[in-house]
């Protein structure tokens, strides 16, 4: 009998035995320590093992990996057995069509030690076929959710496909005795494979669609003081009109049209009618590392590009894009990604 098969049998047998012989009681017996200050009839328990130094998180003895969607105990509305549980909040909206570069994003309600069980509980299928996805974790700025996890395949999602993600994490171990409190599921479609490459040297954006050239557009990138970061970015959000302000707070301008966001700090593709002269001449003068476009180009790209489409900046003059600056996932080599980042998945 192979080890994984045996391990699964052990887990299932223990879970069944534990739950059948110790059912959840409506009213547990009163605690002896409140009424009996002296030890019970079994005598004093000898304290043998020294305690480990205190962990930052309270631990629980009873978390079980639901390896086969354990529907018995878990679905009857039992209270969670973990004092400290990790709640998973899916950020990616389902039933939408995205570009092939979209990561599945989820927030986690506390720090935790291990994503190994989470990984085992995660299944990804594309058009019904199982594929190997991996989680990578970063710090999050979401209030109440200190950890952000991104799930992706080794390469971009296949185009024009249906993706389903199932994270059967309820009661799965998060390490240190903490457990996840809920499952999440997601289903979405991908559109055509759209990849835009912005070449700073040439001041052009080359857009390909399903491998075929789609169009070329003049651009002006970030000025020397506010350079565009280098690397592979993904469109995170589209806004017909946004307000922008620079990091120093020295200007604030609204009504900026056809804005497609690439980083949290405020790099966008957008129409820059005030800057047509520089776009024509290929002079990098944009604030905040933005990619300035002629209004007609911005309008076209607004129709063509979708959240999740890939926009590459191989030779931009700014520093390398950090993974957490936006959906910087494609800048992380797969081998590194598979280790999990902030929280180990292995």
């Amino acid at each position: 009998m192979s080890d994984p098969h045996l391990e699964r049998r052990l887990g299932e047998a223990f879970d069944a035995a534990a739950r059948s012989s110790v059912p959840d009681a409506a009213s547990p017996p009163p605690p002896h320590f409140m009424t009996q200050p002296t030890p019970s009839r079994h005598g004093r328990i000898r304290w043998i093992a020294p305690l480990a130094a205190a962990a930052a998180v309270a631990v629980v003895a009873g978390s079980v990996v639901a390896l086969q969607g354990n529907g018995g105990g878990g679905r009857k509305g039992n209270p969670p057995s973990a004092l400290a549980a990790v709640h998973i909040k899916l950020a990616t909206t389902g039933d939408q069509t995205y570009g092939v570069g979209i990561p599945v994003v989820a927030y986690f309600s506390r720090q935790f030690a291990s994503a190994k069980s989470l990984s085992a509980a995660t299944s990804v299928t594309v058009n019904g076929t199982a594929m190997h996805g991996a989680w990578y974790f970063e710090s999050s700025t979401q209030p109440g959710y200190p950890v952000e996890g991104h799930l992706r395949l080794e390469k971009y999602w296949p185009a024009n496909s249906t993706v389903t993600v199932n994270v059967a994490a309820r009661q799965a171990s998060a390490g240190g005795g903490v457990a996840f409190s809920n499952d999440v599921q997601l289903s979405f479609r991908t559109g055509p494979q759209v990849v835009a490459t912005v070449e700073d040297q040439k001041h052009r954006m080359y857009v390909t669609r399903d491998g075929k050239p789609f169009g070329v557009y003049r651009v002006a990138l970030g000025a020397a003081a506010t350079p565009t970061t280098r690397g592979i970015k993904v469109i995170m959000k589209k806004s017909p009109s946004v307000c922008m302000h620079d990091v120093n707070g020295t200007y604030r301008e609204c009504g900026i049209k056809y804005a497609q966001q690439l980083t949290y700090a405020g790099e966008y593709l957008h129409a820059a009618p005030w800057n047509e002269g520089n776009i024509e001449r290929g002079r990098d003068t944009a604030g905040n590392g933005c990619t300035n476009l002629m209004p007609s180009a911005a309008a076209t790209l607004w129709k063509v590009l979708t959240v999740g489409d890939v926009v590459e900046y191989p030779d931009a003059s700014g520093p390398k894009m950090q993974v957490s600056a936006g959906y910087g996932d494609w800048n992380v080599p797969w081998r590194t990604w598979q280790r999990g980042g902030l929280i180990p998945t292995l």
Partner: protein
Amino acid sequence: MAPTSDADAAVAALYRSHRLPMVRLARLLVDDLETAEDVVQDAFAALHRRWGSVLVPDAAIGYLRTSVVNGSRSVLRRRRTLRANPWPDATGWRSDDADTRVLLDEEHREVLAALRKLPSRQREVIVLRYWAELTEMEIATTLGISVGSVKSSASRGRDAIAAMLGGAR
């Protein structure tokens, strides 16, 4: 009975939230539910006595877990010296509560019968690893042994169970 001290309130809260998983852990290690309940009551009582003097509150559950394992081991050791047959049979796993709808099937009873036959150290390591899902480091701390001992006990325990279950399934 209203809490009269920090220890009362804190341990009462831990009791409410952790009694059940602790009893389940003990039940996997000892013969019967009543014994498991006693072992856990003793563990909470010991925690209550030591509260504030030795423990950092966040380490309470690690302390409980170790107490439960030690208490379970003590009980079995005492019982073994009293009984002619040292190995309780697997029928002890039938549900203690007639109203419980979850019954143990043949496959599970086979695994639990095999677990019963392991030496106590291997059984403890296997339960802590595959039910409580502790890391090797956590198991080592709970049992007061080295990580190397945990690894070898887990390996021997798995091999022994696999051999007892045979290659049929």
